[in-house]
């Protein structure tokens, strides 16, 4: 889902890229402020390691149908582990390294990519909170993680489809349906992987899940 700078092809694309940079910066500032105020114990080690894992996992593309592949985004995974605010910051780091060192995702397009994956991924936390009524012990917890992961990929794909549409002759009429089509399938992989990872961690290391502690507290928007 990483939009390359090569897809920023005309004035409207550039305007969209600049606009998404501004929106992303606003969310980044908000998550930074909230993150600084939110965590009552150090999550530094968990943040570093889970971000590194997400980076590694994003390198492993899995095949879906139609000669197409997808990979874990990991936004919902990070959101459950770290809470929404640190998840946004964590994913921003992953995307930054990808763009800077590996040219995976553009620089001009960075605001778009960061919004689609880091911000939307972090926001998926609130859906899980809503669906589980704020309890990780709720039997709907793992299904909620699956649904939120799938939806975070679909929402990211939808926004990406709108963002890249100026470069397509058919505009949103072609980008939206086709992006949603492929990502509906990729999202199933996202949901399955995230659900398996989270349920394993919940069983083996429940104490490390900082996001879960936040679930119980009043996580105000």
């Amino acid at each position, binding site marked *: 889902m990483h939009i390359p700078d090569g897809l920023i092809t005309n004035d409207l694309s550039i305007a969209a890229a600049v606009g998404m940079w501004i929106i992303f910066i606003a969310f980044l500032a908000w998550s930074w402020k909230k993150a600084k105020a939110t965590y009552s114990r150090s999550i530094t080690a968990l943040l570093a390691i889970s971000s590194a894992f997400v980076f590694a996992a994003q390198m492993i593309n899995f095949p879906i149908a139609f000669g197409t592949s997808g990979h874990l985004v990991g936004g919902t995974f990070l959101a459950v582990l770290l809470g929404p605010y640190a998840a946004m910051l964590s994913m921003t*780091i992953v995307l930054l390294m990808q763009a800077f*060192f590996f040219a995976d995702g553009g620089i001009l397009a960075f605001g778009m990519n960061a919004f689609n994956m880091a911000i939307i991924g972090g926001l998926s936390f609130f859906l899980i909170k809503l669906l589980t009524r704020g309890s990780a012990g709720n039997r709907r917890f793992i299904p909620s993680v699956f649904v939120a992961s799938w939806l975070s990929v679909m929402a990211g794909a939808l926004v990406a*489809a709108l963002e890249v549409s100026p470069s397509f002759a058919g505009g949103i009429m072609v980008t939206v349906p086709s992006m949603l089509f492929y990502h509906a399938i990729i999202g199933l992989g996202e949901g399955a992987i995230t659900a398996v990872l989270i349920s394993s961690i919940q069983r083996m290391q429940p104490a490390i899940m900082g996001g879960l502690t936040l679930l119980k507290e009043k996580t105000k928007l």
Partner: protein
Amino acid sequence: MKKHLGTAALIVVFLAVFIPFASSSPDGLERVVETFGVEEHAPFWNGLMSDYAIAAIGDPYVSTLLAGVFGTCMVLLAGFLLGKAMMPKNLEVSE
């Protein structure tokens, strides 16, 4: 600290095991771009290791693995610095 280094090492093992199985098919967005024949222009930034490969290393597995390990270390370091910057100064470091 030892425990954390162990977990970080597991990420490298994960990469070493799964890289050969990673699909090289286009991802969802790339597929859409190909299908509708959009011409991408050349990017102005090619990164240091474009496409997760180190140009100087011929073997694609070793090249991708080393690029991956490098990226993992960079994210670890940046994540650690972010975590440090984010936490209140007087907070005791748990674990």
